[in-house]
């Protein structure tokens, strides 16, 4: 079995968020980590490798320094790593990112593609499902459990108050939740090997069946008007009412906010 795992290097928000004067994220000033959902996706792939035997390839699109998360993935047990980096790919939104990843993955053999549900810097949860559309394969999102059954996968898809059990024929794509598992640590020897390993570097020229109009900033329909740090919630409003009045009050508030 061949598994491709898409991972992303994201700012470590625990260390505080830094902004450029124009309101965009100052990524250079922030520590970076492997996106938590992606790390769980990688762990899921490594567990399938442990259980069934598989070749796990990690792929990321990003700046050359995104190589760091690929080496971390190799040190955890991934077999191969691909970095997709090119100036013309910069400024990509989810559409351009998924187009780029699709163009790169068309070079690879795969039975299963695993992505994280969403990245902690964008929180869109769009790239995985978009990627499956571009590659014309089924997608099961929000996976909280993954099993292999012959040429199919059986996935527990998390829902608000329950989960759905879905089965899909491979090749298919799964988006993983951080709750899916507890990712393993790297090993010291794995780190030493990972630092010596060759990483495949691809640029625009290596993308298969990909239009220029779908790449980079120019190919991105999304425009970010402004990004800002979390705004602390106010103290809120305290009311002291009897139960009947409380119900009316809450219903009124919910109507006011168009929740009901």
């Amino acid at each position: 079995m061949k598994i491709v795992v898409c991972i992303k290097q994201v700012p470590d928000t625990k260390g505080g968020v830094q902004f450029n004067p124009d309101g965009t994220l100052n990524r250079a000033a922030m520590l970076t980590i492997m996106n938590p959902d992606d790390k769980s996706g990688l762990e899921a792939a490594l567990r399938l490798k442990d259980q069934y035997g598989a070749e796990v390839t990690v792929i990321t699109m990003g700046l050359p320094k995104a190589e760091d998360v690929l080496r971390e993935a190799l040190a955890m047990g991934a077999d191969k790593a691909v970095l997709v980096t090119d100036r013309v790919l910069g400024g990509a939104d989810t559409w351009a990112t998924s187009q780029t990843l699709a163009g790169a993955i068309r070079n690879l053999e795969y039975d299963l593609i695993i992505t994280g549900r969403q990245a902690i810097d964008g929180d869109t949860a769009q790239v995985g499902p978009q990627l499956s559309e571009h590659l014309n394969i089924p997608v099961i999102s929000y996976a909280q459990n993954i099993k292999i059954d012959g040429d199919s996968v059986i996935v527990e898809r998390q829902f608000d108050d329950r989960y759905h059990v879905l089965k899909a024929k491979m090749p298919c794509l799964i988006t993983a939740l951080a709750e899916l598992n507890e990712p393993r640590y790297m090993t010291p020897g794995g780190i030493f090997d990972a630092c010596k390993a060759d990483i495949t570097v691809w640029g625009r020229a290596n993308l298969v069946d990909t239009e220029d109009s779908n790449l980079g900033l120019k190919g991105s329909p999304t425009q970010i008007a402004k990004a800002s740090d979390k705004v602390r919630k106010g103290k809120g409003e305290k009311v002291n009412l009897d139960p009947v009045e409380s119900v009316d009050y809450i219903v009124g508030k919910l109507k006011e906010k168009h929740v009901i």
Partner: protein
Amino acid sequence: MDFTLSKQHEMARSLFKEFAEKEVKPLAVEVDETEEFPRSTVEKMAKYGFLGIPVPKEYGGQGCDPLTYVMCVEELSKVCGTTGVIVSAHTSLCCDPIQTFGTEEQKQKYLVPLAKGEKLGAFGLTEPGAGTDAQGQQTKAVLDGDEYVINGSKIFITNGKEADVYVIFAVTGMIEKRGRMIKEITAFIVEKGTPGFSFGTKEKKMGIRGSSTYELIFTDCRVPKENMLGKPGQGFKIAMHTLDGGRIGIASQALGIAEGALERTIAYTKERKQFGKTIAAQQNTQFQLADMATKVEAAKLLVYKAAMAKATQKEYGFEAAQAKLYAAEVAMEVTTKAVQLHGGYGYTREYEVERMMRDAKITEIYEGTSEVQRMVISAALLK
């Protein structure tokens, strides 16, 4: 000269740091209070290869260098001195002599499971009458057929009852050296469960209270002669060589304890208010912290230099002695100052610096006291 760490060392440090914070730190208080050996942590460390870091891959290890191993002991000791010494004693005092002096059969039989963490190692040199003075050994091994019969006891043995494989030293005869008769000391590999090998009392210690420190008792303990490590009479050399490496491990432990105490003190002094301002705003605190941090950094450079010497030089006893002497004394000084800067709270078990000060003391004593390190250093200077 470049003091920046390589990519792999940076990654290794972040691994050890994350592991220490998530897996070791939450148990540190309990391990100290209950004096329970942290078996579950040791199992996790085994799973991730922490028990065979500098051992070559062909012997089940991680194939890393001594600096990586040093950073592991350092990061573990930042949060728990007990966990740091478990790894240090296992790696430096048991894996290393078998790797260096063992036969291929001994390496396959003992080093491979030790490096994989399937077995835990220990080292038995110290006796009631023989600590610094290795010639004071009373434990004897007498060849009887194809076996050596060991009688005697060893004390203060780290990983004592928890280990599976022990490197033990015993007197196998008398030899003439420079015109006088001295004891011929030979090293042996002894497995737990060997008839005649038992455990005495567990030491109740001031610090590193979760480490299992026991007396080992040998009563007509028969060990196959193929378990002799090195050659007859090579024991003293093996012990001294092993301790050179062990001292780098303990120096790393001392460094980690000092760093841990400094980190907590910086955080505390920024929170604690007296006379309307944080105590970090008082110049006395600032100067104390500056001195502590400078000494910690100097200790780190000596420890890392010793680790690099072990990787590149045949002899590294001098560097190891300097690193251990300085790092241990810095650990004691920094933890004492840390308690002082915490005031009354620092003297309570609610604050970790109290434990760290107790843990630091042993680093000035075991694997060669500070006085022994001074003997080693001055002997090299004056030879």
